C-alpha cells in the first residue's frame, strides 16, 4: 500500500490506484478471464495461481516496481496493469526497467478514465525504462498520446510457411477446430508439393554456415546467452538464477507444443547462437527467442526452420528483431503487425539506442515468456 499512497492514490477502502496484492488476485483473475479469454466461464484456479506466482512471487521482486489495480467507487477491482521488474544495462551502466502488460479495465463505460490512470501511474514509477511488447491498438494509442510511439523495429511478427496447405488448415482450425480433421490430407498434399523443386516454401538444400546444432538444457543456454547478447547497447542484465527462472517459466507454456531449446555451432565448434521455440507436428511453431552472434543470424534461423520442418510443423512464427530482418527476408518470411512494442524513458540516448535497433528489449528480456501471453489455463 505504501506505493499506492506515494502515487497519490486511495487507501484500501477508497477508489483509485493501488498496488496489486494477494487480496486482489481472485478479482484480477476474473477480470483477465472476461477481458482476454472466455467471459462466460469463471477464471480457473490455474490462472489465479499463475497471476500470484508471476506478479507477486517474482524472482526479481522490487518493492517499488509493482503491478497496479484500479479500485472503483464501490470498492471493486475494476482495472489492472501487470508489471514485471527487470534489470538491464545501457552501455554497461545498470538500468532499472519495468515491463508492463495485461492492461485491462472492467466496463470502460463506467470507468472511462481507469486505463489512463493505470498507465500514467505505471509510467510515473521509479524505473529508468518502461517497456511493453504486447500493446494492442487501444493500449498503444494510449502510450502514443503520452508521447511514446510504437517502435516499428520491434513491433512486427513474422511467419515462414513450411507446408502451405497444412498452414492454411492450421490457420483455419485456430478459429474452427473441426478443420483439424483436414490435417492428414493437407500433410499428404504438402508432401507432394515438397518434391517440386520450384516450390517457394521448400527449404534450400545445404545448411547455411555449415555447422551443427544440438538440443541443450537450461544450463548450456545460461552459459552461452550472455555471449549472444553482448553486441547490444541495451540488454538484459541477467544473473544465472534469474535467467534459469525465466527459462523454467517459459517451459510451462503448453499451448503451442513442446519446448525446444537448441544451440547452433559453427564449423569449428564455436557456438553461433541459440533458439527457443514451441512446436508440434501439424502445428504452427511459435518462437520465443532467437539469439545469434553478429553475422550468424542466417545460420541460426536456418537450423530453426529445418528443425521445425523435420518436426512436422506447418509454419514457424515469431517476433521480428532488427538483427534478424536480413535473414528472415532471405528466408521468404512474411511480416505482419499484431501488437506493438512501446518504450518510455527520460533518457533520450537510451530511447535512441532502442529505436536504432541496438537493443534486446523483447522476448526473454520482456514478457513473451509468461503464460499470460497466449497460453491456455484450462488444463
Amino acid at each position, binding site marked *: 500500500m505504501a506505493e499506492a499512497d506515494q502515487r*497519490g492514490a486511495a487507501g484500501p477502502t477508497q477508489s483509485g490506484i493501488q498496488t496489486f496484492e494477494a487480496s486482489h488476485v481472485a478479482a484480477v483473475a476474473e477480470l483477465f478471464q472476461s477481458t482476454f479469454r472466455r467471459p462466460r466461464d469463471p477464471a480457473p484456479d490455474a490462472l489465479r495461481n499463475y497471476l500470484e506466482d508471476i506478479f507477486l512471487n517474482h524472482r526479481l521482486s522490487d518493492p517499488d516496481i509493482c503491478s497496479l489495480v484500479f479500485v472503483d467507487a464501490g470498492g471493486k477491482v475494476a482495472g489492472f496493469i501487470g508489471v514485471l521488474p527487470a534489470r538491464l544495462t545501457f552501455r554497461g551502466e545498470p538500468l532499472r526497467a519495468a515491463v508492463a502488460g495485461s492492461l485491462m479495465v472492467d466496463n470502460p463505460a463506467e470507468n472511462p478514465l481507469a486505463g489512463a490512470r493505470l498507465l500514467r501511474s505505471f509510467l510515473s514509477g521509479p524505473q529508468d525504462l518502461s517497456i511493453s511488447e504486447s500493446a494492442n491498438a487501444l493500449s498503444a494509442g494510449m502510450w502514443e*498520446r503520452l508521447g511514446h510511439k510504437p517502435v516499428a523495429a520491434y513491433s512486427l511478427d513474422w511467419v515462414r510457411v513450411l507446408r502451405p496447405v497444412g498452414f492454411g488448415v492450421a490457420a483455419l482450425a485456430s478459429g474452427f477446430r473441426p478443420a483439424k480433421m483436414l490435417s492428414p490430407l493437407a500433410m499428404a498434399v504438402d508432401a507432394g508439393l515438397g518434391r517440386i523443386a520450384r516450390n517457394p516454401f521448400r527449404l534450400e538444400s545445404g545448411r547455411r554456415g555449415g555447422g551443427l546444432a544440438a538440443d541443450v538444457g537450461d544450463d548450456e543456454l545460461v552459459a552461452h546467452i550472455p555471449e549472444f547478447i553482448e553486441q547490444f547497447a541495451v540488454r538484459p542484465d541477467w544473473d544465472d538464477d534469474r535467467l534459469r527462472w525465466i527459462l523454467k517459466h517459459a517451459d510451462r507454456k503448453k499451448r503451442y507444443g513442446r519446448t525446444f531449446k537448441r544451440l547452433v555451432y559453427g564449423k569449428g565448434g564455436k557456438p553461433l547462437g541459440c533458439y527457443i521455440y514451441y512446436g508440434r507436428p501439424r502445428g504452427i511453431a511459435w518462437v520465443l527467442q532467437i539469439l545469434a552472434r553478429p553475422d550468424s543470424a542466417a545460420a541460426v534461423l536456418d537450423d530453426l526452420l529445418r528443425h521445425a520442418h523435420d518436426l512436422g510443423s506447418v509454419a514457424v512464427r515469431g517476433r521480428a528483431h532488427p538483427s534478424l530482418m536480413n535473414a528472415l527476408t532471405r528466408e521468404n518470411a512474411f511480416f505482419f503487425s499484431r501488437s506493438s512494442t512501446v518504450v518510455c524513458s527520460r533518457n533520450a540516448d537510451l530511447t535512441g539506442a532502442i529505436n536504432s535497433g541496438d537493443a534486446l528489449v523483447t522476448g526473454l528480456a520482456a514478457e513473451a515468456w509468461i503464460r499470460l501471453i497466449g497460453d491456455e489455463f484450462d488444463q
Partner: protein
Amino acid sequence: MQTDVGSAVRDFIADNFLFREDRETVADNESLLENGLLDSTGVLELVAFLETDLGIDIKDAEIIPENFDSIDAIINYAKSKLAKAA
C-alpha cells in the same frame, strides 16, 4: 488568464475530439464521458495538453470524472490548479 484558459480548453476539445464523433459543438456543461467524446486515450491527450500548454502539474489521482467530465469541469479544475500554483 481565466479567459485564456477557457478559450484554450474549448479550442482543444473542438480541434481534437468533436470531429471524431462528427459533432460541431458541445455545451460547456455537457458530459464528455457519457457522450463518448472523451475516453482513457482522449484524457491522456487532454492531460498532456494541460501540462504542456498551460503548465499545470496533474497528479494521477486527479484524473477523475469530477475534473474532466465537462468543459466547465476542466476549466474549473485548470483554474484552481493555476491559482494554487501562483
